[in-house]
């Protein structure tokens, strides 16, 4: 019932559509803030395409690059999603495809396609705190962390941001004890997250460094993940972003693992 109420409020908020809605004198409830942040960051549009470049620097400053094309399709806002990631670089992974059918609250289905062997592998559900392709981002940073997995607390409201403290409901399942989230009051985009370890030391920071409005949607186009304890960082840049291309649901099937769709080309 409570959930329904929030959806109603959300609907109303979306209906008024004024991006400055968050700037009113009224401060939304924390549940609404986190839900809107989740939608803004991971569910913008009905589908999404971007070319993603990750520059991974280790503690010694050595750099590695990952280049991939990402396709995303939402089945329901805040609910099921499908991801298709086609790797262009480095050369040894070119043509590899990673596909996810994401089910919040359930197990995701994941596939990996290895072109040299024409092999479609099914991948066991993994710890979502595992590094994504060797970068300083984890899987959850890429596809979103279930908002129900943490308890959220609004600790501060500044002129520009809501500050949330999020604490995992199941601390044993994650490597952090809590994280602080900066959410833009206008766009509701989460623009910074700082993670604290079990000794309550800050050890990890993710920051949106550039936001652009693309097809009327505030969109993160560059973000940085830093390992503050061990050193090293990854900068991710998103280019060629398009929303609502009408990406067909069949793209997210075995057919297009074995034969990449036109959408991964320019």
């Amino acid at each position: 019932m409570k959930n329904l109420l929030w959806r109603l409020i959300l609907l109303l908020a979306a209906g008024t559509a004024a991006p400055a809605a968050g700037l009113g004198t009224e401060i939304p409830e924390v549940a609404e803030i986190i839900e809107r942040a989740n939608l803004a960051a991971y569910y913008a549009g009905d589908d999404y395409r971007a070319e993603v470049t990750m520059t991974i620097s280790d503690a010694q400053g050595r750099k590695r690059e990952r280049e991939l094309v990402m396709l995303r399709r939402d089945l329901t806002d805040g609910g099921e999603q499908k991801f298709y990631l086609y790797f262009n670089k480095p050369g040894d992974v070119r043509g590899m495809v990673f596909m996810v059918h994401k089910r919040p609250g359930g197990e995701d289905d994941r596939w990996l396609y290895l072109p040299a062997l024409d092999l479609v592998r099914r991948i066991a559900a993994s710890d979502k705190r595992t590094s994504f392709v060797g970068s300083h981002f984890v899987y959850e940073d890429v596809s979103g962390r279930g908002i129900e997995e943490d308890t959220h607390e609004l600790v501060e409201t500044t002129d520009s941001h809501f500050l949330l403290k999020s604490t995992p409901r199941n601390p044993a399942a994650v490597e952090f004890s809590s994280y602080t989230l900066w959410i833009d009051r206008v766009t509701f985009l989460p623009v910074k997250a700082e993670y604290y370890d079990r000794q309550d030391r800050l050890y990890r920071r993710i920051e949106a460094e550039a936001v652009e409005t693309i097809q009327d949607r505030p969109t993160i186009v560059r973000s940085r993940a830093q390992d503050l304890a061990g050193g090293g960082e990854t900068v991710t840049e998103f280019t060629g972003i398009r929303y609502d291309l009408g990406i067909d649901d069949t793209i997210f099937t075995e057919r297009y693992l074995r034969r990449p769709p036109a959408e991964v080309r320019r």
Partner: protein
Amino acid sequence: MKRLLPFLITLFGLLAPAVPPAVGVTPSWLADADDLELRGFVDARAGARTGSDPYEKDVSLAETRLQLDLNWFKERAVFKFKGDLVGDAVTDKAEAAAREINLLFSPLDFVDVKLGRQILTWGTGDLLFVNDLFPKDWESFFVGRDSEYLKAPADVLKTSLFFEAVNIDLVYAPVFNGSIFIDGSRLSYWNPNLERLAGRDFILADRERNRFLKDSEFALRLYRNIGSVETAIYGYSGFWKTPEGMDPATADLTYPRLNVWGASARGPFLAGIANIETGYYDSREDRDGGDPLVRNNEIRLLAGFEKELAVNLTGSVQYYLEWMQKYDRYRRTAGLSARDEYRHVVTLRLTRLLLNQNLTLSFFAYYSPTDEDGYLRPSIRYKITDQWAVEGGGNIFFGNADHTFFGQFENNSNLYAGVRRNF
């Protein structure tokens, strides 16, 4: 041309790694063309037997390989060429081999056609195959070439049809594509006629199936997802992929006719992935099992489970069964080195990623409690940069008897190391 090849490979081997990574070896007119893509690698690797083999050289692997991978993307079609130039110091030969030359296009929205030389894989096994009757290269697998080379190319027409209810793959090969089997030239093997191990002293001769349209193969797969579970049924009409028959007059190995029918399912199970697959091997030239020179009918069964054990550590186990049919009739004519009615095999795989996933430690083991033999594949691979990688590993065979599947290769146990530069 043959004289030129070693020169060309050496030239590429020397020059390609010297080009700065930012430039690669892609000529600028290629890099600029949006629909044309050229990639590849140079790979040098060497391996040696851990013990001596009276029938083979001590060096099991010594080669430099250049692979070029060209893709040409058009509106409704993709043309692909992937070819290798290999300078092989074990055989003292230079070779050019095309791995893929094919055209992929969609004549209708629900149809994909891939025509030409290609690599094909289906089925649910991990380094075990029940319904995947596409050619393998066991020699490459056993000597430590990259795992890509376990799959040998096939010249086929593959048509895929996609419907709501079911998807269909039809693969037609006008001429039989056999597997590369262990013939004694590089790896020693058990020779049942000599009743001893043999190698370069007795290189097996096979009678190729090469009559166009007559020695043709046909493979079929129907598949669909039911929820998160992938299900498939398979059919194959062709020949045993390794020579499982012998002509008594000439002692040539032959490829008897074979049909296979099977099914598989794969899906999430206990926070991991479980798979099950079965196949009935109908050995058409020896259905009653009375011909000792042709392999009998078999039922094959495979079950596996994979799970992430910890962050960056994955483990998997498989059970595999070959159950010979009409065993009594086989037993009557088989000699001392007769196979068992049931061949059970279990496998274990552990994969550990370290150092930001740039270091991969991998271990794969086959063990057969019935044959009392096994095969271990440890490997270590480190990506020094995005371009450079080094790799080392082993292929360790063991067994109580000389005639069992893995036991016969005991003297071929080897260690290898290699370096690769991608561009």
